């Protein structure tokens, strides 16, 4: 690896860190701007002004904002995200099992979605305007346009209620064998994969068609290079950058953006935890979750950018 590429990569990582810093401040400001706090939410309809004030004092919520921000930043630097205001347990302890669940679901979806999307996207681009391409276009546009909850609810109704082949709820505890693993994850993974795949296929197809229109591709065809070789040796290397970006964008929402899926299958993941915490104003958890989602997003997009940088011969200085 040469110095020029290293510099570009470092600059990209530096930009990511700056974004992270901005996100940290933004998270704190936004959670502070939420109407009401955990004391209001805990007491709810049964609140009286003095009871709320007393509870607020007991939870140290009456400290000034900057002081709480300092405490929080100080804690984060030591790897301590604080305690949940609601349960009093450490944030890390509450996050860990949810993160595991979310990673499991996101991982399974990625394993299914990425290879399938690549193959189908490339096939669409290769046989552009064929019957296959048209059918795929209609299918992918259709799936992208239908909201996730509808796909999930209808498939639960068909496969779990009518045919009773899979459970309606995805209960991780019930998994004791590989078969059960597939049954439990079949529905949520299928729903999530179909949505992310649809996006990826559309974007991969567009990138590839873009590359196909380049003069050197025409040259390769005229030379009589077989189609598979054109695809893998001439087109794909030149499309890796945009394709990696398309995949990263689709995957980055899998951790935090699947509230609907988690709700419908009653799957205890991070997104659900985040929504709960916003509802109850459990600020330390909101902050930790948001930070985690932002970091995932930044990690994936930065990774895609680095892949793109590394794949461009000009960037490599060759």
């Amino acid at each position, binding site marked *: 690896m040469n110095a020029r590429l290293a510099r570009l990569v470092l600059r990209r990582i530096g930009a990511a860190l700056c974004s992270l810093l901005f996100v940290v401040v933004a998270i704190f400001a936004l959670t502070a701007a939420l*109407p*009401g706090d955990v*004391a*209001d*939410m*805990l*007491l*709810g*309809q*049964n*609140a*009286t002004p*003095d*009871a709320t004030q*007393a*509870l607020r*004092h*007991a939870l140290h919520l009456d400290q000034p904002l900057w002081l709480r921000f300092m405490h929080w930043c100080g804690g984060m630097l030591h790897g301590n995200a604080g305690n*949940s205001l*609601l*349960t009093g*347990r450490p944030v890390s302890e*509450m996050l860990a*099992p949810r993160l595991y669940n979310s990673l499991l679901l996101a991982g399974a979806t990625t394993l299914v979605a990425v290879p399938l999307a690549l193959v189908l996207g490339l096939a669409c681009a290769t046989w552009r305007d064929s019957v296959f391409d048209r059918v795929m276009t209609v299918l992918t546009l259709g799936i992208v346009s239908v909201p996730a909850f509808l796909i999930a*609810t209808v498939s*639960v*109704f068909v496969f*779990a*209620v009518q045919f*009773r082949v899979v*459970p*309606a*709820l995805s*209960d991780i505890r019930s998994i004791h064998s590989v078969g059960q693993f597939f049954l439990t994850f079949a529905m949520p993974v299928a729903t999530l994969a179909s949505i992310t795949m649809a996006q990826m296929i559309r974007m991969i197809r567009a990138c590839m068609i873009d590359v196909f229109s380049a003069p050197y591709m025409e040259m390769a065809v005229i030379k009589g290079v077989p189609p598979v070789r054109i695809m893998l040796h001439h087109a794909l290397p030149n499309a890796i950058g945009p394709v990696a970006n398309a995949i990263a964008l689709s995957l980055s929402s899998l951790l935090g953006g699947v509230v609907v899926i988690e*709700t*419908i*299958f*009653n799957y*205890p993941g991070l997104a*659900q*935890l985040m929504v*709960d*915490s*916003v*509802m*109850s104003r*459990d600020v330390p*958890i909101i902050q930790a979750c948001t930070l985690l989602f932002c970091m995932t997003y930044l990690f994936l997009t930065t990774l895609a950018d680095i892949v793109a940088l590394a794949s461009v011969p000009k960037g490599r200085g060759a």
Partner: protein
Amino acid sequence: MRGGRAPYGKAGALGRRQALRLAGAGLFAATLPARAVRAAGAQDPQPRRGGHLNFAGLAASTADTLDPARFALATDYIRGHMFYDGLVMLDAEMMPHPALAERLESDDLQTWHITLRRGVTFHDGAALTAADVVYSLARHKDPAVGSQQRVIAQEMADIQAVGPLDVRVTLRGPNADFPSMLGIVSFSIVRNGTTDFSQANGTGPYTCTEFTPGVRTSGQRNPDYWRSPAPWLDSVDMIGISDDMSRHNALLSHDVDIIASVNPRLVRLLRTRGFGIMESPVGTYTDLAIRLDEGPGRSQDFVTGMKYLFNREQVRDSVFLGFARMGNDQPIPPEHRYFAADLPQRPFDPDRARFYLRRSGMMETGVPLVCSPAALASVDIAVVLQYAAQQVGLSLPIRRMPADGYWTEYWMKTPMGFGNTNPRPSLDMTFALNFASGAPWNESRWRDPRFDQLLLAARAQRDEAVRRQIYHDMQVMIHEGAGICLPAFTTSLDAFNPRVRGLAPSQAGQLMGFDFLSHVWLDDAAGGAA
């Protein structure tokens, strides 16, 4: 006051002192009837022991708790009944019966002597003592605990252990309904000194095997339960599914055996597929509160006009699809033993409404109706009301607020806003907390010194007939004076797989007053639903 009745003389004649003297003359111990609580589902022949039940409630979040003081939702109350017991339990008619307390006695209705049941043990094996009871009750008064029932708990001025199994509670004033108050699940008994509620250590029918907030609560039969032979089930899993469709699908696919809060639109579908529906006549109501201290509500004519604008039949039949009982602008539901049945039902009368509204001079106020999904069905009720208002020439803009933060930001803070109130164990509590002049949740800011006097009089009254009369008149006063428009009482709908037996409706709340898990049993011979 109209509707004032003979038993206690002319209007305004009954002072607080007189009422107390009356009660003092009795000088008998107000002892709770010791009759055993009716085994639920007596129609079912032979309850069978064993099996595992899956239950899905309406909500699960990280706010789920095992701390009785923080119980806020129906799922919390169910969890509470799973692992804990109170001193008192409420039956299907909301009558208090002794539970962990063997006897509750008082000579003056102010100092109560509680004798605890002998031989009750916590899940960790420790015996129940007076110290546990003192701790469990007194902690509600500590603001740092964040108790939902702090206002009510403050009625207990002094709580002391006077023997290993004897507790003396001194109230701030006489209150014959003190036993009912102890029937609130939040006043369940925990071990003395408990501050960590990540596990439950109670005396209840199940021991806690797993508790993950927002995910699951699991329990196993407590073999040493004092109400033996209950519970019948070996183990129970409780989850929360907030999505309506998913919750119903989970029942239809047999993933769960019971679901709470059935959508009225799906009742027929569930019935045709062989599932059972339980309708519980709980006294929950959604009301429009018109503040009497600001805005158009300062005109009594405006309030009266608005009350005539409610098309209660339409609210019951189209908003609640018939699963509700009509309200009469006072908070006591028709099935309650103290319900003022002779109070004429206020009709939907656009002509009279127009007359009163015109006379109030408030036709052009433009004050909005504030509603929110947080207050059950209030958005739909607001639309029904808006339509009726249009017919009489009153323009009522609707402002729909998000559920999130509604109770702290909007409720009771706008001239006209909707609220939602759950039934309380006694009329005294309903009146004292929601309608008395100084009540913390007096939605319409209605003030009537005579109402306050009657409230105190009823508390100190042992004579059932006199109490009934007082409560009757208080309902009439609210019906006529308060700024509360109460169109309907909701019915709680819960659905179950036919193999679940022993369920019976209760006025005390959803699913047998949240206590169904110590009553139900599984009949696997019954065959599943389609």
